[in-house]
């Protein structure tokens, strides 16, 4: 595990709280805990955090630190504790044990100050469905203390950024789920926060919107903001994030830079299989072969991810099987994204 503080691109002049546009009017620099000129405290610092729901332990003595300006991924199987951790960081869930500070402030004692500088988009894109898009952003801006003139300036670019300019007077409830999620992204950006937390932000988005969202996150990171993303789409996270935390059953299995991810046990291999035609039965054909652990459709019946144990799987015979069945293989390439392999080697099957 790698300690990250201090060696990050986000630690740059201009990233100093007080300079950032996220400081809302009325928040005199310095009057908010953690908003001290020259403050180089990490964006997120967690020490010995544990959390339980009734008898189920969601988090077990977690330690991690995310420096400012970092685009950080949070991955793990279902039930690993990702959403619990994010809710604690967003000050929506009280800590039971351990120390958690966000932007230099304690989540328990400075929850409101943190919320002023934090944008949290939950997994469910909850939106005020009776309002129009414009009204919703206007409302959220006003709640964060943005004056009318400032909201006038900020709402249009926010709508533009998420591609909803032409729907500003449409009632939110009439938008599709994907568009509501885009609006959710605009909502968390409207008060120009320093730290953005996204829980499965790409869920329900079409491929174009997903790519645009990822680009947007890069841009935000470039502006000195810290972005924490939880996602199941490992390929995108692998390409996007600077660093990553792998959670499994409430424990941190890895926390560090993407480049430092372990390559698993060296035996796990992820291959991208592309076919000329749709072939829905590919899972049944390939999964029975020796050493094949998983066959997952990617976009359609033409693209699949095959996860296998290299020592047990004869790639040549796998391809031969496909050819014998008349399936035309366009490409069969081992994925270079190490996050998939690391994820498989670091996490266990099923949930506790």
């Amino acid at each position: 595990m790698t300690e990250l503080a201090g060696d990050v691109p986000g630690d740059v002049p201009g990233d100093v709280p007080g300079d950032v546009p996220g400081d809302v009017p009325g928040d005199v620099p310095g009057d908010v805990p953690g908003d001290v000129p020259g403050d180089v405290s990490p964006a997120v610092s967690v020490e010995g955090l544990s959390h339980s729901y009734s008898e189920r332990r969601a988090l077990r003595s977690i330690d991690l630190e995310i420096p400012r300006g970092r685009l950080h991924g949070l991955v793990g199987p279902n039930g690993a504790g990702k959403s619990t951790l994010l809710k604690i960081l967003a000050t929506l869930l009280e800590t039971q044990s351990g120390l958690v500070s966000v932007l230099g402030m304690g989540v328990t004692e400075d929850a409101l100050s943190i919320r002023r500088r934090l944008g949290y988009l939950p997994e469910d894109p909850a939106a005020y469905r009776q309002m129009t898009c414009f009204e919703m952003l206007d409302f959220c801006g006003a709640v964060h203390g943005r004056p009318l003139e400032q909201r006038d300036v900020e709402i249009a670019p926010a709508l533009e950024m998420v591609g909803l300019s032409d729907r500003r007077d449409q009632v939110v409830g009439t938008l599709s789920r994907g568009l509501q999620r885009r609006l959710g992204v605009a909502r968390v950006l409207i008060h120009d926060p320093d730290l953005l937390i996204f829980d499965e932000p790409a869920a329900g988005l079409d491929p174009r919107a997903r790519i645009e969202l990822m680009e947007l996150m890069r841009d935000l990171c470039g502006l000195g903001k810290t972005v924490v993303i939880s996602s199941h789409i490992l390929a995108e996270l692998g390409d996007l994030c600077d660093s990553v935390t792998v959670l499994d059953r409430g424990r941190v299995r890895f926390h560090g830079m993407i480049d430092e991810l372990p390559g698993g046990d060296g035996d796990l291999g992820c291959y991208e299989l592309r076919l000329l035609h749709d072939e829905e039965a590919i899972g049944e054909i390939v999964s029975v072969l020796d050493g094949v652990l998983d066959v997952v459709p990617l976009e359609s019946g033409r693209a699949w991810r095959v996860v296998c144990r290299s020592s047990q799987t004869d790639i040549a015979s796998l391809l031969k099987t496909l050819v014998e069945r008349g399936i035309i293989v366009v490409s069969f390439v081992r994925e270079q994204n190490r996050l998939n392999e690391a994820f498989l080697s670091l996490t266990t099957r099923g949930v506790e």
Partner: protein
Amino acid sequence: MRATAANTATAATATAATAAAAMFTRALRSDSRRLRPHLFRMMFAGLILGSLVVAHVQSLSLGAPGLFFFSNILWLNLVLIVLAAVSFLSTAITEEKEEGTLGLLMMAGVGPLAMLLGKSSTRLFSTSLLLVVQFPFALMAIVLGGVTFTQIAAGYIALAAFLALSANIGLLTSVICRRSGNAGGVTLLVLTVVLGGGYVLRPLVALLALAELRLWGLERQVSMMPLDWYRGGSAWFDDISSTQPWVSVVAGWLDDYDQLSMVTRLEQIGGSGFSESLISRGVVWDLVVSLVLFGIAWWVFIPATRNALTGVPPRGPVATASVSGRRGWLKWLSRPRWLAAGRAWRTAISWKEFHFTTGGVAWLLLKTVAYGAFLGISGWLLFDPVGGMPLRAWARIVLLGLLCFVGIEGGVYASRVFHDERKYRTLGVTLGFPIPAWRIVLEKLAGCSLGLLPALGWLLIGIQIDELVFWDLMADYRTWIAGLVYLVLVHLVLLLSLYVRWGALPLAVAMLVIVVGCGYPLMWLPTVALGVVTESDEAMVMPSIYACSVAVAVLLGLIVLRLKVVASES
């Protein structure tokens, strides 16, 4: 060709039956697995058992305690059925509309008949279990004396028939209305008329007759409506029939209906010497009307739900073009710009509640006109210094009427403050704003209070009619106790709306009726003792002030705790 059509119809019926059976089974399974319904039934059985103990104690000094006990159970059940109809039975279809799952069910091949059968029969069954669970206890009334088995059987048959009627009234309103709140409100209104019968409708007929007399300038030909119309009403009806024959016809109908009504039936069954048949005309009437209502619900299902398949919450009369201005003059006329929500205020949560919970400017104007009309029309109809109602009596009616409107509006808003946010899953977002939870609650209440301005404004004007009426009311310690209990009710509604999906208001009313009913003997003694010792009405309010303050503080604490849990769940 005919055979094919018959086959198609048979297949459709079979599909509907299968779907209804599937929904029924699912609901039964879900009901049997959940703890809350069992606890509720157990609590109700406990309540009956408690009544039995009270009846037993009373048997030491009272004749026919069994009859007293049984009569109490009958009325308690009637209240329970009304509450179930308003909260539980009237939301069968509206909750699917609000969740946006109605379209999914229809796409899955669940037709209107299957949906109506599946949704209503499960709820009817679940509610009827409450009647079943108490039946063995009710039989013990025979042992206590004064009641026969026929009476008990007739009582439960009458209640079952009324339950079927209430369920189908609720079902029809839930098909027609878009929101559960509206469906519950309409069901309550209809049930009030169904139960009240002549008691409720006679004053309306009288008011219509009065309006006609006023319009034709005939008010001097008959005596005006007496102050005690509800007691000596029939004589006045005879009098007024001399100039308006239609009144006597309607009065005859109302008399006939009163013979059929549930209230009369329960009075007969709960009285001594009951010797009528088990199945009365009223039972047959209830069942026939139930079937007719079910048929209407089936008939109107498709047209009534056509626009409610998306689950989009209604905006009410709030215009959408908040900034971009007009989009066609016809559109502008129907939703002028000044009806739009406009820009969010500094107290943004109040802005949101005002526009999207109370209905905004449009509802504000509508209520201003409606309450003004109430004041004006009631004065025009009732106030007659020569032969009819004096100014003071009219002032009392205006004051109490407007206070009722304020109370009802306040209760409805309280039930919607958190309910809508929970339903649309936005409460977590709201609680995640950089505002303390207590301020969020206050801002929400402040926003809703703006919706009360028309009623409060007219109340101030109404007070000017005769200030003495107002001061008399204020001087009465019972007014203060009622106000305090209302404050507790509002907090209870707020709390319950964070737990239940629908029916927080009727549930809170029911809980409060039970608590106040049980607590009354406890509070009565210190209240009267203080009054006697201090010879002051003000002192008599003190125990209630303490009790209500403690209740409000506890409820507030529970609300904040619950908000934290809801925020973490989102």
